[in-house]
């Protein structure tokens, strides 16, 4: 069965430090890959997505993610975290197997300390 794994439930970083959030997927072919962010009390917002081409994709708010086929990973990174980045981050995949299916990871909660 297809799945999306975010191994880190919660991460704490200092403001200005770099960030990497991990995401692994289980699927036979390359799925379409997404990162969403959810601020408290809000719905999810797309940060970036990958479906082909350059394996390093740039998103909004200074985020980027790298697709590594050999590791079935799509990790999210940011070189310098801002306090406003504190939120819940979800990795998601879209696959087409007869019909479209969508899977979200369990999320990683990010705390930023001053």
């Amino acid at each position: 069965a297809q799945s999306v794994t975010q191994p880190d439930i919660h991460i704490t970083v200092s403001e200005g430090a770099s960030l990497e959030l991990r995401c692994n997927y289980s699927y036979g072919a390359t799925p379409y890959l997404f990162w969403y962010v959810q601020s408290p009390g809000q719905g999810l917002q797309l940060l970036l997505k990958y479906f082909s081409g350059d394996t390093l994709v740039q998103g909004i708010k200074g985020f980027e993610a790298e697709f590594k086929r050999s590791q079935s990973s799509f990790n999210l990174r940011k070189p310098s975290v801002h306090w406003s980045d504190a939120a819940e981050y979800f990795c998601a995949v879209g696959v087409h197997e007869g019909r479209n299916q969508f899977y979200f990871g369990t999320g990683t909660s990010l705390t930023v300390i001053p």
Partner: protein
Amino acid sequence: DARVTQTPRDKVTEMGQEVTMRCQPILGHNTVFWYRQTMMQGLELLAYFRNRAPLDDSGMPKDRFSAEMPDATLATLKIQPSEPRDSAVYFCASGLAGARDEQFFGPGTRLTVL
């Protein structure tokens, strides 16, 4: 600025009562999703529609939940009768038909069943 809207934003009800949540997708989007988010289960896909037809409702408890799209501008999720375990935040999202397409999330309906 096109957005998905959801009503009500908050709902408190008593066990056994009927609850109806409404969603207005972004104009031009032909796919609508319903998700439930809880601390224990994370984000769960309940159902999704394309061109107003249900494509997948396998995540939805059939005995008490029902989802419909009376027209292209309105999606509804109904719970009858409601139970305390239904307490959660329910999100509606809309998008285009492909597995590679972004989903645009509404702000959610926070449901509390006493």
